[in-house]
């Protein structure tokens, strides 16, 4: 097991170096912050002066060398826009994103597990068809549109909930639903197909022959086995939730990591963009490592194969 974890850690490290290299060069392909910062009547001299002030001079390979040297010491540079260490800016926004992730996950699992099980148990029936429709709708509905729709209905028309921003518990309801809808659909479809596989397996048949009640068969034997692939998806989606809530955070004016990433791209804030993506990658690698370890514990075949 220790060798397995060590190997995953090394793989993660290689991945991070690759990510850092790609982000450094790709970020610079599409423009630079200097041109976005200067006023319309700025001269070439003004441009050069600002490049010097921001420390953006010198050839690209030289800048990359400096970036790598600093990164190894844990310094990912200062945000051009915020004039603060990029790592500090990232960690100032991370807690805000993390605040909506647990609620979203809980909502997704509370709805997806029973729906997935029921649609597998009543395959082809009315429940399965309704659950299928919910699944398609959940995946196909753009959360940008859903967010605006929820605001229109529950804030503007009914006046029940605030339109946006962080605040008391009522502020979490609409962003959580918006972010969670996609997850509900994804989890539900996966649980349904896993359940169908497990329900058809030999050990379930044996359990039924042994005279175990249907509740114990379904909830104890089937669900535990059906949740193994869900765990993998959970890891992937957890990372995506932290880093990919750009649209939800924008619609609900939520000052999290997703919006910070968007702002860094638009403003060509290279150091911040690099820091956000690298730290996001660290987070995803970490989450996936945890999931892989859990997976290995849950499913002994993985340990044996390793």
């Amino acid at each position, binding site marked *: 097991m220790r060798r397995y974890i060590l190997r995953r850690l090394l793989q993660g490290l290689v991945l991070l170096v690759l990510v850092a290299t790609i982000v450094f060069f790709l970020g610079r392909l*599409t*423009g*630079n912050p200097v*041109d*976005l*910062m*200067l*006023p*319309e*009547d*700025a*001269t*070439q*001299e*003004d*441009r050069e*002066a*600002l490049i010097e*002030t*921001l420390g953006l001079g010198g050839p690209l390979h030289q800048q990359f060398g400096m970036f790598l040297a600093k990164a190894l010491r844990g310094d990912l540079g200062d945000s051009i*826009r*915020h*004039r603060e260490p990029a790592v500090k*800016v990232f960690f*100032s*926004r991370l807690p*805000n994103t993390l605040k909506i992730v647990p609620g979203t996950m809980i909502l997704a699992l509370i709805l997806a597990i029973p729906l997935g099980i029921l649609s597998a148990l009543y395959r082809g029936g009315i429940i399965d068809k309704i659950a299928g429709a919910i699944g398609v709708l959940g995946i196909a509905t753009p959360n940008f549109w859903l967010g*605006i729709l929820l*605001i*229109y209905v529950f*804030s*503007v028309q009914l*006046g029940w909930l*605030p*339109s*946006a*921003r*962080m605040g008391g518990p009522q502020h979490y309801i609409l962003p959580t639903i918006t972010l969670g809808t996609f997850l509900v659909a994804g989890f539900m479809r996966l649980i349904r197909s896993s359940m169908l596989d497990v329900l058809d397996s030999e050990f379930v048949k044996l359990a039924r022959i042994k005279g175990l009640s249907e509740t114990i068969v379904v909830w104890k034997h089937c669900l535990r086995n059906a949740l193994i692939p869900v765990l993998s998806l959970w890891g992937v989606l957890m990372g995506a939730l932290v880093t990919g809530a750009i649209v939800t955070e*924008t*619609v*609900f*004016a939520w*000052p*999290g990591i997703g*919006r*910070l990433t968007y702002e860094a791209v*638009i*403003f*060509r804030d290279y150091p911040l963009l690099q820091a956000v993506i690298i730290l996001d990658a660290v987070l995803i690698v970490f989450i996936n490592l945890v999931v892989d370890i859990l997976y290995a514990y849950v499913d002994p075949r993985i340990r044996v194969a390793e």
Partner: protein
Amino acid sequence: MRHCDLLKGWLLPVLLALAWTAVAAEKQEGTLVVALGTLGAQSMDPIQETRSPHAHYHAPMYDALVGFNFENGGKGPGVAERWELAKDGLSWTFHIRKGLKWHNGDPLTAHDVKFSFERTMSKESIASNKAALRRDVKRIEVVDDYTLQIYTNGVQVHFAEGLSRATYQVGQLMPKKYIETVGAEEFRKKPIGSGPWKFVKSVPGDRIEYEAVDYPHWRGTPHFKRLTLLLVPEESTRVAMVRTGEAAIAEISPESIKEVKAAKLKVISVPGTMQAIYQMYGLYLPESQKNPLADKRVREALSLAIDRQQIIDHVMYGEASWPLPFDIYQYSSDTDIERWRKWSREAFRYDPKRAKQLLAEAGYPNGFELKFANTAMAGTPFMVPIGLAVADFWNRLGVKVKYTHYEWGSFAPLLLGEQKQLVGVVSMYRTAGRPVAAPRFYGAFHSKGAHHLLGRGNDCPDLCKTFDELHKAVTVEQDAVQRAEKTNRMIELASDAWVAVPIIEGMGYWAVNPKKVGAFKAIPGRHEFGDVFERMPRPEEKRWQ
């Protein structure tokens, strides 16, 4: 303009305003909540922000040496109540109001002003007016606590305008003693200014909170007790917040105007904040001479093919104006506005018949292929649909438009670099509303300007040389009548070149909940409300008509 006796005719209104604000200060209550699309870098240190978002959030708490003409736009008295240009034209003397104070109670003096400008010009500064100040200022001398003399590099007749937030929207004046005592880091955490709003709190990516000063302020004493600027990037959400009353005011674009009016909210359209234009690159180069755009008749034909009224009515939902010439607004100084208003009505008319005739005369009766780069700068997303409409009008003329869309961040380096990829290309662009045209004309047309549309270096034909000379003459002319005459000639020359052509004059758009804020007026040409918040009454004080 040897003497700027701006107090004439101002004294009585100012005294009345002070008396009124003293009464109003006693009744400050409630919170004015404003939802904005961006808070920029959200740094409260004026030297750490570069572009216009700081006009929203620096202006409430910081003052500028030169202020606004609130009625017509352009410059007016600020912390300096008046100023003069020396007879030799090489220095400006600013007379600072007495009795002004910083939020910690320290007096505001000429020493603070000198310190502020020097800090803005320092190496660590990225302020938008840094470059202009470094170019123009030779040295600054404090004559006494309330008199400052600024020596310029050569004659700078437009120097005072450049110190108004009508030009650069920076939070300009910073407290010398406080910063020197606590240091820059602490100042950034606990900033103080001299404006009508005191800083309370800044939550990155979310909001900035202020509290009104409780004494009469020369800019107007706030009617509300608190001011909160919210960062709400999505426009639909901002509109929803105004509808629900979570915000009193929100920044919007023309697309939302219909919805806002239908919800019985008010729409404020600030006139003269920008011009949407198109411009052509590298036509002065030898290799461009075979390009159809090198023929002035073709360039004029392209303008005549655009139905500007249709764009105003249908793309801008009626909330835009017929443009004046390039970078000219109703509040532009040294300009014969009436003359140019008549000229632009005629020159920018929709005349497809004449356009076709001009194309035929130039030898292109069946049109030609035109490369068009559509893009929109930050804050003006409606430039993209305007660009699409323009391309459509040109297609109708018979021109085959080869259309490319650029995100602004990827277009800017092409424009501000060598422009090799833009030779013979037409692109969308904009001019921001400012009272003095000369700096923007320099950027667009001068051979050393960023866009150098008429020529550059060795490729500077006669028109380019004439422009450079005329521009220089405008910027050093001390006689107001002579300067106006030269400015009008400069506008004439640039307009007749048809290389940078206005399409519409845009506005700044805001949705207002009349139950949350009383009736107020914006400053013409200044989209942002940073200098207006203190003049906004509570809803019960002044109802909307």
